[in-house]
């Protein structure tokens, strides 16, 4: 059974076709890379998968459930979580509160009881705090737990955003250029981190990345988009040598 299946997805903005007849299937636990020049439609693909944009035509199914008509929060509840190209943490909330909020579904007490000071909520909150700390410490971010997330260095903010997405307990994680703006050490750390959540949590991941080194090393399978069109698909080696890919990237400097 495919975890995710996208069939003939097309999305247009006015005259611009940002995604054209895109088709793709994904197994659970897979780590899939998506690359392509600027404006190729990569982020648009994520936006379609998470219900932010409605495709003009085509179908998306996650674990055999159609995503058409579903709102973004419903899609997340089905098991798809994402990060954003331009980090979208809640800057005024602390790092821990960002993660806690993502775990809101583990709090069973309703808002009415919470606002009247429910004991049960206090217990649940305690538990949630512990889990959030654990998750943060696993990625060596617990030292920052009580700082407003906007005060963190850029690379750490990206990590917190990934942890926040993971805290919703998804089965598919969409990462939009997680390495952007990171230095070499941070990138190396990030790669270990992504491999870890893919292997040890068994989480399927779609990785959009401009850094070829990162994608080629992490992803056994890579899809190349250009002008909304899939122009190549396959293992890193094949993709690298594909003449269409080379042409699409002509003039774009691939990082060694």
């Amino acid at each position, binding site marked *: 059974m495919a975890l995710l299946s996208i069939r003939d997805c097309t999305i247009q903005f006015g005259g611009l076709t940002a995604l054209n007849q895109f088709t793709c299937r994904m197994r659970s636990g897979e780590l899939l890379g998506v690359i392509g020049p600027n404006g190729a439609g990569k982020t648009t693909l994520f936006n379609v998968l*998470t219900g*932010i944009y409605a495709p003009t035509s085509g179908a998306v199914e996650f674990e055999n459930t159609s995503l058409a008509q579903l*709102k*973004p*929060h419903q899609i*997340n*509840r089905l098991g798809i*979580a*994402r990060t*954003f190209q331009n980090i*979208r*943490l*809640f*800057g*005024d*909330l*602390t790092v821990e*509160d960002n993660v*806690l*909020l*993502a*775990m*809101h*579904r583990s*709090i069973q007490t309703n*808002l009415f009881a*919470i*606002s*009247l*000071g429910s004991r049960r*909520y206090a217990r649940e*909150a305690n538990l*949630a705090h512990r889990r959030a700390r654990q998750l943060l410490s696993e990625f060596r971010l617990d030292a920052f737990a*009580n*700082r*407003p997330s906007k*005060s963190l260095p850029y690379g750490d903010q990206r990590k917190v955003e990934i942890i*926040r*997405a993971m*805290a*919703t307990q998804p089965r598919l994680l969409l990462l939009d250029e997680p390495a952007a703006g990171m230095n070499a050490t941070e990138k190396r750390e990030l790669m270990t981190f992504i491999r870890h959540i893919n292997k040890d949590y068994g989480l399927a991941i779609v990785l959009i990345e401009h850094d070829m080194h990162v994608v080629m090393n992490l992803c056994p399978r890579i899809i190349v988009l250009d002008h909304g069109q899939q122009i190549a698909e396959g293992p890193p080696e094949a993709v690298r040598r594909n003449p269409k890919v080379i042409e699409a990237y002509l003039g774009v400097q691939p990082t060694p």
Partner: protein
Amino acid sequence: MIDPYFQLILLRCGVAAIMAVSLNLINGFTGQFSLGHAGFMAIGAYVSAAVSVFLAPHAGEFVTQVWFLIALLSGGIAAGLMGLLVGLPTLRLRGDYLAIATLGFAVIIRVVILNLDVVGGARGMTDIPELSNGYWIFGTLAITVWIINNLVYSIKGYALTAISEDEIATASIGISTTKYKVMAFVVGAFFAGIGGGLYAHLESYLNTNSFTFLRSFEFVAMVVLGGMGSITGSIVAAFILTILPEALRGFDQYRMIIYSLMLIVLMLTRPTGIFGRRELWRWNRGKT
């Protein structure tokens, strides 16, 4: 005893604080800019006054107090229901449209009351029993603060702050932004209704002129001055902005000018207000 005039001012401060804290839940914490808070206050004021005047039996002290509670709750619930009615359709709108839509609703509410002869229409409503005293007003303020504090600083309640920062990101972690926005709106309207009820039974006289756009603007000024997202700030600002005009004699002419200049200068120099998003009782949280 305290001088009765000063006492009255203090009680008005208490009512203003309830109004400001409840508006802060909507405008500050949740970031949904409402300009119609006086409309919900009006509903609470008129409904509770009507309950007191037309329904409450003339019996002993205890019964009177119980009926006052019923009157207040009726006002709050009526305002809350109106909040639901207003909120469900309008909360889909973007920030500035929402501001105008809520302002519009407040105008509509006022015009409807103005045409209701049972509650005095344009003449206003008189002889409302003067039941609002320090216990009622400050007791209610304490409960309001306690409930809103429990709400906004709970794990689920962080959703409100999250919505005020970034709705798309909030939805991306599985939170129905609509549900939370409507909830904040209804709870805010409910407490505004209660505040209106206390106001009616404090002044003992109601007229729709007390619930114009100007009144909504005063509450907005309090929320902004205190800090959008600070309960402490709203209370402090409600006291400041209620006492200030009384303290300076002949100030009335300048009051609105000073309010408006204050808002402009605040926005240009310190848009976070006095307290930002801090509370006296959680001062060190989220500090770097």
